[in-house]
């Protein structure tokens, strides 16, 4: 109501008038908004962005600071106690491994899985693949930081480190396969394995197999606070929730490298903030999941370079309690698989830029990514057949089950809901979804006693074939979270690690994959491919299969340079 101010005059707008005018404005604005065409950035067919950015042919320039806004923040620095990408996004730069995979400037393409020497110049295996000998580079120095003070790395350091890994922590399962370690001289390490294994070098090339120092472990009792290695960068600062600062190691054994003076990782948990940081020039490269996000960034940063990354395997899928009914019946698993439209998830959730989902990296058994047909009959979307098969299995009216998951990223919730809807519609399976926080989800998942379904994972760090087959699929492995229990797979994965011939390895791997598909042992779900977007002056930053430069592939940063 208009009021009378102390001077006795009426003024102002009445409430009714205000509401009328405000309402009219809102309707007008709404009409304006709706009249604008909403552009949907859906990738149709091939991505317009390159899949591979080869090494730049110019001579690298030294100097400069590379900055990245990172979603990950390691709770601690101890490589024995965590495999988190938060740690290895920079531990791969402070430290070396005995062996490594090819860097982008050495690789023939995005799928190059060749091994190169890191701390080891050469290596060889005995004819039975039980004894592996590694010849270390001479003159490699620990970083010139107390208590190492730049002393030379010797075989005793490797022995100490590997024995420490075997003693406690998350890598004991792998390192306990070493029966004994000999150091016949300062530069020779000889590993005696419990059983023959042709993939020992590959296991030691995993991003997590970094060599840490004895002195720090003995002085501190753990490695939680200090990370000193032989790598191209020295960890100058790690402030949790703030930043990690790495400076060039002036005594690095690979002379002339790294090119950068400094690499700064800014801990930035929010996705919108990371993108804003890239737009504002505070971050030099960033990961994006979808084509529409890339297009939005290129509107403000048109000269950004974009690599369309292609995953060679996926890490998430429907894990089933297949040691219990009803999922112990292969017909039920097959029915579930045929009732889920994976292509729809790729087209909608990932805007066409995703893969249908398989567990073993394709380059270990064929040249190109799998096509839908190659998955076999149980992985095609055939709801009518699925219903028939489920009825044959004794569930003509479906059944009820549960599914728990943790939302690693928002798209996962969409996928979970799509699966729930399709299983209900096609098979009358009622799936009760429970979204958990990380700790509850993780604890329940790795305990492997849950029932029903879980949106489960296999570890993201693993590059090697042995890790992806034997370690994750053998029934006796403690990393077999999907609870695969198939004697044929057990036999094949064991045979694989005893097969030195590459052609035979591919053939056996193909048989493992075919068996996995046939038995629907792990019900893989689609996954995004993603994009690496970089400022135009960043060179040699391309990501390779299973080694994203911003994550477990961080050692690549030693070859990155800035053309400015």
């Amino acid at each position, binding site marked *: 109501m208009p009021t009378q101010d102390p001077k006795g005059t009426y003024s102002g707008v009445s409430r009714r008038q205000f509401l009328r005018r405000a309402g009219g404005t809102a309707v007008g604005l709404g009409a304006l908004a709706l009249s604008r065409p909403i552009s949907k950035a859906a990738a149709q067919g091939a991505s317009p962005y390159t899949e591979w950015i080869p090494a730049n042919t110019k001579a690298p320039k030294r100097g400069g600071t590379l900055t990245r806004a990172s979603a990950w923040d390691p709770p601690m620095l101890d490589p024995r106690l965590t495999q988190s990408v938060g740690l290895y996004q920079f531990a791969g730069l402070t430290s070396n491994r005995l062996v490594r995979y090819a860097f982008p400037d050495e690789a023939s393409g995005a799928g190059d899985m060749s091994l190169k020497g890191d701390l080891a110049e050469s290596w060889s295996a005995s004819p039975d693949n039980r004894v592996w000998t590694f010849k270390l580079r001479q003159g490699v120095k620990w970083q010139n930081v107390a208590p190492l003070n730049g002393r030379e790395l010797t075989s005793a350091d490797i022995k100490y480190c590997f024995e420490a890994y075997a003693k406690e922590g*998350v890598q004991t399962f792998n390192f306990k396969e070493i029966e004994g370690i000999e150091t016949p001289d300062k530069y020779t390490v000889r590993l005696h394995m419990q059983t023959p294994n042709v993939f020992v070098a590959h296991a030691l090339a995993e991003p997590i197999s970094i060599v840490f120092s004895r002195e720090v472990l003995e002085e501190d009792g753990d490695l939680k606070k200090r990370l000193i290695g032989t790598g191209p960068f020295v960890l100058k600062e790690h402030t949790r929730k703030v930043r990690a600062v790495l400076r060039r190691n002036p005594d690095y054994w690979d002379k002339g490298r790294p090119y950068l003076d400094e690499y700064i990782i*800014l801990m930035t948990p929010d996705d919108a903030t990371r993108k*804003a940081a890239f737009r504002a020039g505070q971050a030099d490269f960033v990961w994006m999941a979808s084509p529409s996000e890339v297009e939005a960034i290129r509107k403000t940063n048109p000269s950004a370079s974009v690599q369309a990354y292609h995953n060679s395997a996926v890490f998430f899928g429907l894990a089933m309690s297949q040691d219990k009914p009803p999922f112990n019946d292969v017909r039920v698993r097959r029915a579930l698989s045929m009732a889920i439209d994976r292509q729809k998830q790729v087209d909608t959730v990932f805007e066409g830029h995703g893969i249908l989902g398989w567990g073993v990296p394709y380059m270990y058994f064929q040249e190109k990514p799998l096509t839908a047909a190659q998955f076999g009959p149980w992985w095609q979307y055939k709801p009518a057949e699925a219903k028939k098969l489920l009825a044959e299995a004794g569930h003509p009216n479906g059944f009820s089950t549960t599914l728990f998951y943790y939302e690693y990223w928002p798209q996962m919730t969409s996928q979970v809901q799509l699966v729930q809807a399709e299983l209900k519609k096609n098979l009358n399976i009622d799936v009760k979804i429970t979204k958990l926080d990380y700790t509850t989800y993780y*604890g329940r998942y790795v*305990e492997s006693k849950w029932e029903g379904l879980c949106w489960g994972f296999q570890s993201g760090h693993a590059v090697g074939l042995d890790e992806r087959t034997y370690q994750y699929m053998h029934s006796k492995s403690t990393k077999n979270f999907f609870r695969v229990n198939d004697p044929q797979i057990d036999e094949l994965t064991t045979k694989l690690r005893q097969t030195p011939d590459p052609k035979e390895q591919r053939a056996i791997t193909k048989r493992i994959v075919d068996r996995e598909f046939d038995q629907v042992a792990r019900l893989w779900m689609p996954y995004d491919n993603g994009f690496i977007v970089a400022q135009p002056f960043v060179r040699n930053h391309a990501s390779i299969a299973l080694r994203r430069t911003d994550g477990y592939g961080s050692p690549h940063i030693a070859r990155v340079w800035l053309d400015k």
Partner: protein
Amino acid sequence: MYKYVLRRMFLAVPVLLLSSLIVFGLMRVMPGDALTVLMGESGNISEKELAKVRKELRLDLPYYQQYGLWLWQMMSLRPGDSLLTGEPITVSLRKAIPVTLELAALAMVLGLVIAIPIGVLSATRQDTASDYAGRVVAVSGLSFPDFWLGTLVITFAAIWFHWIPPIGYTSLWDSPWRNLQQFLLPAAVLGFRLSAATMRMTRSTVLEVLREDYVRTAWAKGLAGRIVVYKHALKNALIPVVTVIGGQLGVLLAGAVVIETIFALPGMGRLTVEAILYRDYPVVQTNVMLVAATLVTLNLLVDLTYAWLDPRIRYS
């Protein structure tokens, strides 16, 4: 007055004890375990290893013993170490508290700078365009969620100005200018939300006070409008406003986790939420007790402020 203060401090003890019981109990009741996350990322948690670490951290003791131990640690101001990082909790707090204090202080100042003048303007120009504009601003502040506003602000700052606050917290003593740049936007977003409730309360109480007899007398005496409003009316109108501000300050000091996350500030909010997610019992319990003690103190300070604002109020 001092007897009143002593009595209030004495009454704070059962409040804090009850808070400690609740937070301890809730953390133990929550499913999941800090040790599982800590040790099991590759699935290699053997029962033996878990039992060993549990024993080292004294998590194998009966709950009442754990509670007693923790209470003793709190009273002797030695809250122990984080289960997750191994860092002493006092060190973590020393890093997080200044961030939260600074954010809270700036947000409060900005909030009051917006709220009080607009609230007074709205009240003195009731039902005019300025009043409606002020009320729209207030309702917007109440309606817009933190995460939405913060995300909008940072996204459009980057798009329109190719600038965002520098990421990577820098303390005020290391670089005041960089620090100010980092805090201004988040404080403005938080302050905007806080100002909404304060603005509405200010408007409402000023309107009420302006109708009092003594104010009418002041107008009748021919005093200038500014003197009537700011010298006579506002002080009395502020008592309920101070209550609102006190409550908001308490919430701010607990940590604004959404704003801290969006603007990458390592404050109490993020520290506490991360500790809850990872079941880092000692950190959660310590932080909650700290917040409880802060709120109790703040309430006391708010009550004492009443006496300053209104001389009729006296405590004994």
